[in-house]
């Protein structure tokens, strides 16, 4: 049941880790501001939402799928929670409603993929648009929802607080990492997910219930998206649903894939997402400290990401043995 990996001296994961470490050292040695503890914590805080979404994305990709609706779920369900709270509903109930909404979206994704056998990329794309449209027109008054209701202090602490000096979003990212790691590594469903991602037909023949597993997979993805949304909402005190229509989902896929989670499924784990997130985090933080102009930042970011991919395809060339059917 172990996921088969292409054993080469340098995997993509290691290449990206090396690039991240190199960049880290470069900034560390040249920028005194960079090496302060506070800055390193804010570096982590700034990518923790991206990292959490990346974990959800990784889960969907490992099971040989992809969840393009994760950012929409994040934005729309958290916006609804704020709106419900504004309208006077107790915060606990509002949160529960948002959670149920996100689970429902996940189950629709799962059902389309598992029972109607729609390819994940199309199913989740359609559901993303549907989720945005339905929630925006039927449940929300505005594109931008401010939290106006008086809510208990713990809510603001989710995204804005800190424990032992570590910002809560970082701790929550660590918690999701741990939970997902335990799920993928030690839970039967998690192990089965790798089997399904590696070879769905074989998994089915051995008796794994692929369909319920797919439902579970996308429901978890959505719940992770919802969690990320609540962290974001409690940090800023508002949700801009426009983010649902942004290109953020590509960044999320990138974080998962750049760290070495193969798009063909069945490969990778939490560690890959952490490495991908670290690379993006170091890059963004360092370039902001250097006050690199926005357009130049985009160029540098894409060149470094391209380098990582090119290095991987030179060091680990695809051949008939390593490439799989379903690989994008």
């Amino acid at each position, binding site marked *: 049941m172990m996921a088969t990996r292409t054993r080469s001296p340098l995997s993509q994961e290691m290449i990206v880790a090396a690039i991240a470490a190199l960049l880290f050292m470069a900034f560390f040695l040249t920028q005194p501001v960079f090496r302060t503890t506070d800055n390193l914590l804010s570096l982590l805080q700034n990518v923790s939402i991206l990292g959490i979404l990346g974990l959800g994305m990784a889960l969907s990709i490992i099971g040989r799928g992809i969840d393009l609706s994760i950012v929409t779920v994040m934005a729309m369900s958290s916006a609804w929670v704020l709106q419900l709270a504004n309208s006077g509903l107790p915060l606990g109930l509002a949160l529960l409603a948002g959670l149920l909404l996100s689970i429902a979206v996940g189950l629709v994704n799962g059902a389309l993929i598992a029972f109607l056998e729609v390819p994940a990329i199309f199913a989740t794309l359609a559901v993303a648009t549907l989720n945005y449209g339905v929630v925006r027109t039927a449940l929300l008054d505005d594109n931008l929802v401010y939290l106006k209701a008086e809510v208990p202090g713990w809510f603001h602490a989710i995204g804005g607080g800190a424990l032992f000096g570590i910002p809560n979003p970082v701790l929550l990212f660590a918690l999701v990492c741990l939970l997902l790691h335990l799920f993928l590594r030690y839970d039967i469903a998690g192990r089965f997910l790798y089997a399904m991602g590696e070879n769905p037909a074989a998994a089915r023949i051995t008796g794994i219930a692929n369909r319920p597993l797919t439902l579970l997979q996308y429901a978890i993805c959505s719940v992770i998206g919802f969690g990320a949304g609540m962290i974001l909402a409690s940090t800023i005190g508002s949700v*801009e649903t426009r983010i649902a*229509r942004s290109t953020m989902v590509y960044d999320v896929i990138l974080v998962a894939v750049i760290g070495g989670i193969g798009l063909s499924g069945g490969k990778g784990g939490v560690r890959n997402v952490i490495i991908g997130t670290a690379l993006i985090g170091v890059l963004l933080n360092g370039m902001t400290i250097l006050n690199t102009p926005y357009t130049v930042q985009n160029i540098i970011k894409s060149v470094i990401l391209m380098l990582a991919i090119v290095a991987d395809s030179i060091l680990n060339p695809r051949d008939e043995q390593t490439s799989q059917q379903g690989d994008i």
Partner: protein
Amino acid sequence: MRKLLTTVLAGFLTAAPALAEKPDDGLVFESAAALKGKTVAYLPIAMGFDLTEAWVTGLKKDAETWGYELTIRDPNWSVDAGAQAFAQLIQEQPDVIVVHPPEIQAYARLIQQAERAGIAVVVVSLKASTNADYFIGPDWYDMAVAQTKSVIEMCGKSKGGSGKIAVMQGVLTNPTSQYGIQAIEATVAESGGDIEIVSNQAADWDASKAHAIATTVLQANPDLCGYVGMWDNMDVGIAAAIREAGKQDTVKLVSSGGGNRDSACANIENGNFATYISYDAAAQARDLMMVVRSVLQNPPEEPGAHPVALYTPLRSIDKATMHSGSCWSLDTLQAYGP
């Protein structure tokens, strides 16, 4: 006598319906007739946020009152979808197209096309590179000058501040950023070293991106004194970063926007923003309503030939100058009109 009475009574009776009728002052019927049955198209960046919802309130009221048809196209932040909708509108030949362009260049050619097709074009808030018949909106350069002067007042070395400020731009191709950053740099240069920009980044109008960047900038510049943002909806992200860093008393955030109560006055009250330059979108809604009336009554002979600029008067709001009329709320605007 009796005959006279009858005549008077009869005269009164026949005159009675005429009394209930509105007198013609020489303009009232003519102008109403000019509005009736016309078509007005409204193409904002997106519906569903304070500015675009506010602007349309006057048009909605007028469409109802005067019997013109109002078409709203919502491209939902997509430049492509907006351009398509614009091209489609040109085909449909409305009398006026009211457009809120997402970028300086995006609709430049489409505005010309519409003008060639004989359609009057009104540009709202974000100035396009091509002139239309009317522009209603802030002079973004002056706006950023006002913001920078306000931050110099609070943070200049001569005023006892550290003289270090940071700037958060929105979308770089947008006039707010394009003209705004030139104004900020020029005003800073004019200050003769009293103030310097230590960070100049862009966050795509996204509060969460602004939050992430501001967190790092605050770490990198512990003696930062001021932050200049370019839109309230994005700047709340900077405010959150300042609050988390515990620097609400030391870092002054100067923001700008349409003066919606939730985004503007509420943030002045709770200390998120030190100063807010408002272009009063409720007043702009009224301007727009009147400009559309004017264009429908007196359509330009050659659309685009004589562009008229209606730059919105700017209003600076801080704790000291804020009063009950400083901001507006969308609910009341929608209920009672601009």
